[in-house]
């Protein structure tokens, strides 16, 4: 068990190192350097440019820059954001909680909705309910994240004007009382959270239905049927418990999927999180910020899959003994 945990943590470290190396490599093959604008400016002399490069360590040989980059990332120093004129760490620590808020709401809501839908489908395979839910989840599984977000945005903010068009707070937010502030954030959260939930609950529902389909023909289900238990009880109590195990492993996939979804949802709803940071730094070519956001995103995903593995161990005693 301890050995297993240690190897999982080692793996986490490897992933972070790998992503950091990729980020460093990409920054350095990217065309131009941060002083490209200055290079184009004839008023900036070569001496000034050289001094800038020296100040940022860009005149050192690449291997040395690489070692410095990796060690500083390991120490938690992510560099300086050119576009925000703030330390990258400060920019990201403002954004990360907002993304986590969105992701965690969607995570719990999607598992609840998805499992519920799959149970409803499995009660009567081939029925109208089964096919309608299956069709809807196929649609949600096949629609680009940003397109769904845009449709909801146009419908509920322009057409029906029920929700604010974006952001996380109103402009007058600082003058609000604490309770009104909370309500304000909640109002802004509704649409992005619903979008992300719709997208991911389709994945959960498809997965859970397949898992239930695998369990339902098994002998213990037949026994339960032979005892004369109602189908509702069989599906909910006998089949679902055993079919939940594969769904727990879906937990590990949830993090990359939700993060991917969040990138699009945040852009559409101008939600001030990691996704908006990533998109904004593409536009402003702020590579240090972009790469750090991607490193942090990957760490988030790796930690998520570690958590999922631990959960799986906790849920399935057979595995615990085997380790």
């Amino acid at each position, binding site marked *: 068990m301890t050995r297993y945990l240690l190897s999982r943590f080692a793996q986490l470290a490897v992933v972070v190192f790998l992503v950091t190396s990729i980020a460093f490599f*990409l920054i350095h093959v990217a065309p131009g350097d941060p002083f490209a604008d200055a290079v184009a400016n004839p008023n900036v002399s070569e001496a000034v440019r050289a001094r800038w490069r020296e100040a940022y360590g860009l005149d050192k040989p690449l291997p040395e820059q690489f070692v410095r980059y990796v060690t500083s990332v390991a120490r938690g120093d992510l560099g300086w954001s050119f576009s925000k004129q703030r330390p990258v760490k400060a920019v990201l620590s403002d954004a990360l909680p907002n993304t986590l808020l969105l992701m965690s709401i969607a995570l719990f809501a999607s598992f609840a909705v998805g499992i519920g839908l799959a149970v409803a489908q499995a009660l009567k395979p081939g029925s109208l309910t089964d096919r309608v839910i299956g069709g809807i989840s196929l649609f949600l599984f096949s629609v680009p994240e940003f*397109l769904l977000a845009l449709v909801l945005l146009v419908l509920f903010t322009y057409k029906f004007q029920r929700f604010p068009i974006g952001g996380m707070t109103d402009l007058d937010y600082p003058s609000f009382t604490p309770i009104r502030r909370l309500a304000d954030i909640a109002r802004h959260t509704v649409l992005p959270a619903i979008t992300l939930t719709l997208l991911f609950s389709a994945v959960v529902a498809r997965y859970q239905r397949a898992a239930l389909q695998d369990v339902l023909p098994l002998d213990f289900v037949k026994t339960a049927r032979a005892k004369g238990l109602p189908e509702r009880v069989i599906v909910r109590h006998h089949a679902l418990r055993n079919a939940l195990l594969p769904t727990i492993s879906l937990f590990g996939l949830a993090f990359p999927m939700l993060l991917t979804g969040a990138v699009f949802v945040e*852009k559409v709803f101008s939600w001030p999180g990691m996704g908006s940071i990533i998109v904004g730094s*593409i536009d402003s070519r702020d*590579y240090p910020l972009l790469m750090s956001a991607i490193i942090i995103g990957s760490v988030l995903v790796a930690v998520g899959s570690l958590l999922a593995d631990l959960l799986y161990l906790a849920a399935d005693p057979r595995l615990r003994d085997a380790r």
Partner: protein
Amino acid sequence: MLPTRRTVARRLIANRSAIAAMALLLAIIIPCAGAPLFVSHDPLSQPDPVKLKYQPPSRISPFGTDELSRDVFSRVLYGGRTSLSIALVATLLSITLGTAYGAVAGFAGGVVESVMMRILDALMSIPRLLLLIAVFATWDELQVKWFILIIGFTGWYGLSRIVRGQVLAMKGEEFVMSARALGAGPARILLRHVLPNVLTPVIVAAALGVGRVILLEAGLSYLGVGLHPPDPSWGNIIQDGTDKIYAIASIWWISFFPGMALVLTVMAFNSLGDALREALEPRGIRS
């Protein structure tokens, strides 16, 4: 016992959603593949960017025109060519890589296998979209071939895990042992005896993979790191119509039609994948 080819075909034909999916795919792929035969406007020509821009759908241009007076219908067909061929080639690349990697790892066993699987674990933990954003955002002149290569090279991890599992299970089977007893070398056993029996997950992964790449292409375009205009792709055209968020509702046709084409295509590929999975099930159709 694996179902014979005939059983698979019979099961597919009996599956109504599979038939519908295939019909839908043909209805979309044929006009896209033969785009020049179906359109009267050039997808890049701008007849009159002042007077003919943002024309709603009409008899002359059934899907309307865009900001530069280009005909959206011909753009959707030509864009479909791009999007579909990118998706097909990238997926072909992914499933080849995934099958080869998984088969080698599963067949080699021992240290080779565990090293290969650890590498795979590390690769799998890097979110694909973030990696693609990082690569494409720093890439100035992104050519289609590089776009395809990189998408293909980031899409095989899941499949190779499944293939490895299948190969492991297959290694102990009697027909493999008897082949070995007859003196067949490892390469022959792998290619002639093991691989044909792991085709099921590969075919299913191919169908689902195509849909995923189409979605990725559109998503990357929306984020501004996709293929460069003016050459149309479904993602690019959708992006043309959603650029100005306040105007989406009044110029809906620019994104609606490519969006519909894209969603229907992806739905068709996904349900085809589902149907194939069911048809290729070893023990008959699940109740």
